[in-house]
Every structure is written in structure tokens, then in C-alpha cells.
């Protein structure tokens, strides 16, 4: 008998007591492998699907391991009591959840079977059939929209935003809840006009009324060195608080509930 609990997936981390990626106290499962190559990515070890090595403070760590849904659920359910008390649950992040659709779907299904609320944090860059597969088991879709201009999107992430924007419309129509998230990255999308474009698009989507502006941070920088890769953001500093507040106001003017951070 093939049991969906035995579905294998490749993850690189599980993080407990996460309070910034969906409501309440959550456990985040980080999947390995992503379609995009965002220059600012703070988890560069998540991008390749292949298991690899990264050195941190002189010790070499293997990044990535294959696990079953059952094993993940054993970990996820340890914090069930906190989900119940906080309205939290499971968030699948990455990497990209849609990069491993069968595993993601099985994991979401298992969570719902156990009464755990579910979210994914995703780029939306996949065929909609894949997304459709997991929507029945998903309570919240946290969808990144990084830029409205397809060329600039391609330049900074490696892919065009065409598929993402198309999917956004369909997800908004079919998902239980959709929140748009924007990594605010200096020299990429941090002008009021650019944010207004994204917020304008978001507010045009049916049933969408929330947007999260996530300020760029440099905490992932050392990982690039550890992976022997180049950090292409250089010495760009995180956007200051007043700037973030200004962009937040911009988004609010377009009728969205906007917040800084998740």
C-alpha cells in the first residue's frame, strides 16, 4: 500500500516558534530547491535541489536531507498545543514548496488530517495545475510579488514574473486566503512608485486585502561565502524604518492593510 505519509521530500531545516510567517506560533519546514535565484535571497543554501555542503564558522555542514511526511509530522505535531493557543500552525517555505509538489501536497494533507492549520510561503512560479493540487489542504497562501516590471524581475530573480502574476489572479480566486508579500530591496523595488505598482496589482485581486512589506536584511550574507558563491548585493544596507513606513503608507493608500514584516 502506498501511503501519502511515506512521501519523500527534501528539506534543509525545520524551525520552531516562528512568529513572522503566518499567524501565531508556527513551525516552518524549509524545502530545498527553488525556481528563482533572487540576488538578495537570505537562504542561498535553499536554492539548489541537490544536497550540498556549506561551511559555517569553520565547520562544514551538509545542507539537505530526504525525509518522509511522517517524520516531518512527528516534529510538527510536537508544537500542536502552541498552534492551538496562538492560532498558528505549519508553514512550508523554501526553497519553493511548488518545486516538490507531491511532497508539499502530502504534507499539507497530513497537517489538515491532524487539525493543524497550514500555510505556504511561495513564489507562485509553477504551472497552476500544481498549485490547484494543494489548494484543498491550504489555509493561507503567502505569495511573493517582487516586481511588476517583467524585465527587472528577470534581471534580479532570473525569471520573468509573467507566470507569477497570472497565477496570482487564479490563487486569489481559488485559495482560502491570500496575502501578498514584498521583499523590499534597495535599488530593486524600494521606490514608492514600484511599491504602488505592486500594491495596486494586489488590491485589484479578488479577496486580497493584506500586504506585508519585508525589509531586505543581510543576515544571509555569510552563507554565500560558506557556499563558495558571490554575494551580489555588496554593501547595500537594509532600508531604514522611516523609508519602510513611507512605503507602508503608500500601500495603505491603495486600500490594503499593510504591515512591515510578517
Amino acid at each position: 500500500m502506498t501511503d501519502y505519509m511515506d512521501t519523500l521530500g527534501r528539506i534543509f531545516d525545520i524551525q520552531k516558534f516562528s512568529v513572522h510567517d503566518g499567524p501565531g506560533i508556527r513551525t516552518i519546514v524549509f524545502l530545498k530547491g527553488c525556481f528563482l535565484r533572487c540576488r538578495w535571497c537570505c537562504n542561498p543554501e535553499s536554492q539548489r535541489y541537490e544536497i550540498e555542503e556549506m561551511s559555517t564558522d569553520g565547520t562544514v555542514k551538509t545542507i539537505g536531507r530526504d525525509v518522509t511526511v511522517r517524520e516531518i509530522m512527528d516534529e510538527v505535531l510536537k508544537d500542536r498545543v502552541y498552534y492551538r493557543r496562538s492560532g498558528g500552525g505549519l508553514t512550508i517555505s523554501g526553497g519553493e514548496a511548488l518545486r516538490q509538489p507531491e511532497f508539499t501536497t502530502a504534507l499539507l494533507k497530513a497537517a489538515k488530517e491532524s487539525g493543524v492549520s497550514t500555510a505556504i510561503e511561495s513564489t507562485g512560479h509553477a504551472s497552476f495545475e500544481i498549485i490547484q493540487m494543494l489548494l484543498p489542504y491550504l489555509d493561507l497562501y503567502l505569495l511573493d510579488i517582487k516586481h511588476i516590471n517583467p524585465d527587472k524581475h528577470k534581471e534580479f530573480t532570473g525569471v520573468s514574473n509573467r507566470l507569477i502574476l497570472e497565477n496570482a489572479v487564479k490563487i486569489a480566486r481559488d485559495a482560502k486566503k491570500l496575502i501578498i508579500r514584498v521583499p523590499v530591496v534597495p535599488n530593486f523595488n524600494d521606490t514608492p512608485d514600484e511599491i504602488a505598482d505592486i500594491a495596486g496589482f494586489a488590491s485589484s485581486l479578488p479577496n486580497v486585502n493584506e500586504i506585508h512589506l519585508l525589509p531586505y536584511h543581510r543576515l544571509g550574507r555569510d552563507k554565500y561565502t560558506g557556499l563558495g558563491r558571490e554575494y551580489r548585493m555588496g554593501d547595500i544596507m537594509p532600508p531604514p524604518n522611516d523609508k519602510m513606513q513611507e512605503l507602508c503608507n503608500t500601500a495603505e493608500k491603495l486600500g490594503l492593510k499593510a504591515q512591515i514584516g510578517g
Partner: protein
Amino acid sequence: MSGFYTGSITKSPRINRLVEHLLLKMPEIEAERAVLLTESYMQTEGEPIITRRAKAFKHILENIPITIRPDELIVGSATKAPRSCQVFPEFSYDWLENEFDTVATRSADPFYISDETKQALSNVYRYWKGKTTSELATEYMIPEARQAIDHNIFTPGNYFYNGVGHVTVDYAKVIEIGYEGIITEAELALSKLNPGDGDFARKSHFLNAVILSCRAACDYAARYHELARSMAEKESNPQRKQELAQISDICLRVPAKGATSFYEACQSFWFVQMLIQMESSGHSISPGRFDQYMYPYYKADIDSGAVTVEFAQELMDCVWVKLNDLNKVRDAASAEGFAGYSLFQNLIAGGQNSEGVDVTNPLSFMCIEASMHVRLPQPSLSVRVWNGTPHEFLIKAAELTRTGIGLPAYYNDEVIIPALVNRGLTLADARDYCIIGCVEPQKAGKTEGWHDAAFFNMCRPLELVFSNGMDAGKQISIRTGDVSQFGTFQEFYDAYRAQMNYMIELLVNADNAIDVAHAERCPLPYLSSMVEDCIGRCKSVQEGGAVYNFTGPQGFGIANVTDSLWAIKTLVFDQKKYTLADFKNALDDNFGRSMPADQAQKITVAIVAELARLGKSLDETRIAEIYKAVLNNQTDSEKKAAYVSLLSDIEALPKYGNDVSEVDFFARDVAYTYSKPLERYENPRGGQYQAGLYPVSANVPLGAQTGATPDGRLAGTPIADGVSPAAGRDVHGPTAACNSVAKLDHFIASNGTLFNMKFHPSALAGRSGLESFIALIRGYFDQKGSHMQFNVVSRETLLDAQKNPDQYRSLVVRVAGYSALFTTLSRSLQDDIINRTEQTAE
């Protein structure tokens, strides 16, 4: 009920002035009480002890200097200088005499002492030789117990050298009927005795002592009535003049009579609180459910318009400041263990009543507000949490936590109530519990709990397994066999349990000896007047007058012992990678690291003793050489390399605190090695022993006396605090740590468990931060954890405070069951707090 006011209440400018005055100078030791006590004792030689105690109390209260400090609304000071202390030679004195010249300069809790005071104390100390409770207790102990104390297996030092304290009296009763009401009760009881009764002599003397003590308290308040009146006459500021006149009126009425207003109730409370600490040096005199017994007076005054919310808050703030005006000097070693000038006056808000109904009220919120206003370590503010606790009350509590003051501590009704019922309390009494001192639950006004009866270091019996009962060259415990010959983990674990059982019995012997000494030499008639059923039974609290009697010594080191036994089980018996001899060598050599001085000294003594046994006597020079060699630990490089690999193998094992079920359930069993044998014992008051699992701050100094342990902990370093995971070893976040700790059996550790967590302020930012924080507490409590407390400060803040203590004089941190000013703590304790794992939200 709904619609609690959750916002802030204006803080009177008076409060800052009171706090400033309080913290202006180093606390001082004053001699008056000791001198007056001795005068009285000299006059009452040969009289019954209970009578002598009452007469001495009266003599002290009639003659001790009294003072009203600037701006005070609540009056009554035990000392002339703020935040200072009297001394209590009837319990012990020689330690202070020995420390006269160092007490002002020591690192933990220094006190100024004048030459005059030294002289006065030296004079009275001559009288006390052979008359103290500690000397009598020593006589009552068997030599093996004294030896175990000398070898730091456990330390009953607290009650050995001091009064017992650790009680919540029936404040409600004094506030309601006054001491005149209690005197009437005692007189009635007296009238029912027949001179022909077999126990008439004892009973009648006890009741007369109660009456005398209560009258002394009334007369003491009358002195404040006079003082306030004469100060009012001389006062030129009309507002202050009026305040003093009102103080004078109030002190004429309370605590002699029942309070008729919230102000009078506050003042009455304060006299009770202060005078208990004048009768005896016992700390942890805990106000208990202040929000409950004060509420009727508050509500009546608010309803009638007699007070505003702001003025009621100001009065409470004044009470809060006064709780910091009391102080206690301890010997240098104890000062390390209780660091922070702490008196552990635990005051608890919220929770359910004796019928199981939630009775959180506006005063519960105002208690939290008062701690926000005064930002001082006392009272040790606690909140009761259960499924019926209003969410907004927890939000208010979390807001206080977020200020980084280390308050409040959170307690779980859902564990504590059944735990107390299991110890024989009625359900109604259990539901009405309050917390004493650090974390110890009791029913107020009915209990003599002896909650803090000793520190028991659970790591030391583990050392005794490896040494076959030897310590520093002496056979101090039973022989459990040559450790290298154990063939199974079960044999090893059985040996540990045997060492534990033996030492627990000695601990009980020591505690009971001290208990008897207190009953014989220092019964407390004043305290007994406020604890049921002393008047009914006509005997003092110390002789078993209370309805509920317990003794609760606290074990600590669960995390280290668990991780140690797990390492031995896995590496020696499961994987067979090392032998027990390998472990023994590594521990003896401190894993090849340099040896702390304490340990080096102990090892040297052991070597010298061993050589002497073999007939080799050594001269001083040779002994000094051995000591030097041990200190430098000249382990050869091959051995050192082996230790490095052993340490890294230990390091790689799963540890308690990371939500690894098999390790955590093992910890539960380890905790039983202390709690289960203990509950079989009885104390001289007819009560049961019950375990606590918390260390106050003794995990640091007692860690310094503990050799290396098989969990990789180096010799002399701190032991894990309370039931918390070992410092820095819980690396999977707060929920994992909570889940691990919740797997202990908190119900059987009915004298309280202590779980410390340190949060960076960012973890509590915004309303959502507070919500997550509360959900974490709720989640831990849902899984039947008993207590939780938090430090919310950044590591940088603490490091900076170490460098610039002057700029952080008011920085309050949570130490253990209490908060203290960070800069008053010893350096090593500061380091320990900094090194506790800092939890942040990801």
C-alpha cells in the same frame, strides 16, 4: 466579568522621590534590635521560652528607634537608614562577627557597618554563645549529616542560621478585625482552659504570649501615631502637614482595630508585613493574595467615592516601595545563593477562589501597574494562570514582562491545585493557594511549609558513585562498589539511587534537627497569632500549631544529571565506545582542562589522605607541590586528545531541553530519584516532606563546589538552574525547551519547580509579540508545567551593565524565583545570567 480597565494609571511624582531616597545609599547594618533583644533576654532568664520571646518582642517594639521617611504615606520602618537591616543573634551570630570587616566590600549584597555597630554587636554576641538555634541544631544532628553538609552534598544553611519565615499569614483577618480582635480570640481560648488541664501550663503561656505580642504591635503603631502628630505640628508645607495628620489618625486605628478604608487597610497590611520581619529573620514573608484580601476595601472606597483610582494606585505604589525598605544581611556564602538583597516577598494576583471561580479583579491589574511604576525587585510579583484567566490580564502581565524587570512569574493553577490536594489540602484551600518566596505554593494563614528547607545538589551523589562514597579523602557516604566494575547501566543507575537515598535521609535528619531547635529556642508567638490553628491548638507555628505542616527541601541539577546519565548509558553501555573507567579518569582530570582552585584543593586533600593511609606522611612543601600540580593539571597530551574526543562525543548526544522524548522522559525519572524517596519522610511537626525543584541562585556557588560531570560540564562551573535545561544546551527554541520541561512530573514536586527563560525584547515586540508570548506560556501550562519566569533583556545590555554598573543601577533581572538589581549581583552570577540561552523568535 468583562471590561477590565487595562490601560495605565497616572503615576504620582511622589513615587520617584520615594524610590530615589530608597536607593541613595548602601544598605546598613543596625544594632538596636540585637541590643534590645539581649537586654530583654537577660531580664527573663529562667522563664518559659514562649514568654521570653513575647517579652523580647515587646521590649524591642517599645524602644527601637522609629522614623517616618520623607514623602511617605505608608509608614513603619525597621531601620533608621533606608533599605537597611537589623540582626538576629538568637539564630546565629558568629558568621557576622567573622565578616565584620568584609561585609561592606564583598561582591554579593554588601552592607555598610559602622564601628559603633560592630562594638555594640560584639558586646551582645558574648551573651549568645551556646544559646542559638544553630548551635542547638548542630547538637541534634547526627555526625554523618553534619559531615555531608561540610562536604556540600546539601546545605540547610538558610534555616540553620536564620529564622524560617516562608509563610503567608492571615492578613485578611488582621485587616478585618485588628489585633484587638485576635486578642479577644486568644482571651476566649484562655478562658476555656482549666487550670487543672494536663497541658494548661504550656497552653496558657502560649496564649498569653500571643496576647502580649499583639498588644506590642498595637503599641508600636501608637508610637507612629505620636511621631506623625508631632511631625505634623512642625511641618511648614501645608500639604505634607495634612498628610502627616492623616497618617497619625490612621496609626491610631490600625492595626489595633479593623480597617475602615483602603488607606487603613494598606497601612494595617504594612505593619503586619514589617513586624513579622522584626520578630524573626526568616525571609519570604509573602503577602500572598493581596488583590483578593484588599479588594473589599478598595471597592467600598471606589463605590463611595472616598478614593480615586489614582490615589488607590499611589497607596499601592507606596506599599510596593516599602517592601523594598526591608533588608536582611546573610553570611557571604548565603548571600551568593540568595543574591540581590532579596527578601522574596511574593505577592500574587489573579486566579480562582476557593469555589473555583476566577476572581481576577481591578486590583490584580493595579498590582501589575504598581510594579511598572516602582520598577523595584520587591515584591516578587506573581500571577496565577488557569483556563479561566482573562486574556487581557495576561496581556497586562506580559507588558510588565516586556519591561525587562523580570516580573511577574507565572503559575499554573491547573497543576498546583491538584498537587496540593495530593498533599492533603482540602480542595477549597488548594484553590486559594498563594506562592511563598520563589515558587512554593501554600494555603495562606494555615500553613507552616518550611519551603526552602535546604539545597540538595543532585550532581554530588553522582560524584559519589564514581568515588565509591569518598570525598576529599574521606568516606562520607555508603560504598556502592567500584564504578569500573559495573556491567550494566541499571547497576550504575541503582548505585546513583542508593547514593541519593542515603543522602536524602541525612538531609531529613539535618532538617528535622533544625526544626526541633527552632521549636525549642525560637517559637514565634506574634507570627503564630496570625496562623490558624495556633490559637485553637494553643501552640506555636514552630511546635506544629498550623493546620498544614510540610518540609520542602529543593533539589537541583536535573538537567546535568539527566545529560550525564544519558551520556553514560549511551556511550558506555549502548555504544560501548568508552568504559566507566574512561569517564572516571576524565572527570578526575576535569577533561584535561585547568582545575578550579576549590576542586584542586579537594583533590590535594584526597591525595594526601590516601598517601597517609599508605603510611606516607608529607611535609608542607610537598603538599604545596601536589596542589600546584593538580591546579595546573599536567595531563599528558595523549590523554588530553582522548578527552577532547570524549567531550565531542558527549557534545553530539541529544540533551534535555530539545524536545527529544526519550531524553526528556528519562529526566522525569531522574527527578523521581529525589522527589519520591523524600515524600516518605515526616517532620517533627507531624507534616510530610515534599520536594521542590529549584535552585534560587545557588546553582552558581554550589556549582563551584562540584567536580566535572559526565555531561561534559567542567569542574566548578554552574549547575543548570531549576528544571531549566543546562545553559546553552537548549538549541531548538522556546517551544522545544518548554515541551522538554513539561515532561517532568510537576505534580509530585509540590514544593514548586522553577523554569527560567530569557527573552530578547524583540521577541515580545508589538501586540503580536505579546500574544505569542502568552500562547507559549499557555502551551507550556496546557502540558502541565507549573511555573515560568522570564528575563527580557539583550545580552549587550547586560554586558554593558557589567562594564558600566553606575549607569545601570536600576536594571532589574530575574535571578531565580525573584528579581534583583543586576549590578548588585556577584560577577559570576552576572555571567551565569548572561550565558543562559537567549530565546528569540525567528
